[in-house]
């Protein structure tokens, strides 16, 4: 899957949890979910569960802890899709 396709799906997934909606327009690979999009850290769990469902993958604890930026999340999704 292309990275841009993953990013687009990711935007749709995080949108309901984003407090800073305008920051979504400036989203790039360095965007940080908590600091830039002001997502409640407890909701990162719900986002990861949505990612698992949408992409049909399973995220382990170690990967979950790294999924704080768009870049890290896309990398983890790409790696899991290869398995």
């Amino acid at each position, binding site marked *: 899957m292309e990275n841009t396709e993953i990013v687009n799906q990711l935007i749709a997934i995080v949108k309901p949890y984003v407090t800073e909606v305008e920051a979504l327009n400036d989203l790039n690979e360095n965007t940080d979910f908590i600091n830039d999009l002001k997502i409640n850290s407890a909701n990162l*769990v719900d986002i*990861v*569960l949505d990612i698992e469902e949408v992409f049909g993958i399973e995220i382990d604890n170690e990967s979950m802890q790294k999924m704080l930026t768009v870049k890290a999340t896309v990398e983890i999704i790409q790696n899991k899709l290869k398995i």
Partner: protein
Amino acid sequence: MNSNEIIAKLPYSKPFLFVDEILKINENGVEGCFTYDENLDFYRGHFKSQPITPGVILTETMAQIGVVCLGVFLMNNQLVSNGLIALTSTEIEFLKPVFPDEKVTVTSEKIYFRFGKLKCKVSMKNSQNELVCQGIIAGMIVNF
């Protein structure tokens, strides 16, 4: 773990412990009850001369029985000493008032327990088996 062992592990005490007894518990859910003593302090002010249990207290009761007791059971002694239980979200609707000395029963169904976060569908019934309030409550372990 039995009812008394779970209640002993809760981080609350009077006047903010809202669990009398765990009636049923397994990895998918929990059922427990509590009776609101008419002498509880908040009845003096909620409301003036007409005591009714505040919605926040009903919510707290649902969270303590439905999420924290179940969380303690699921963690099965793995709760780390510097870990604290944090309420992370509630979405509750209230249907009936609860008066002093009423006994309520809380039933909770696990939606998920992943990455230290427990999210449950929780409901409360009064002694006439009428639905008092219901909703979704989530909590997680946080380290300070």
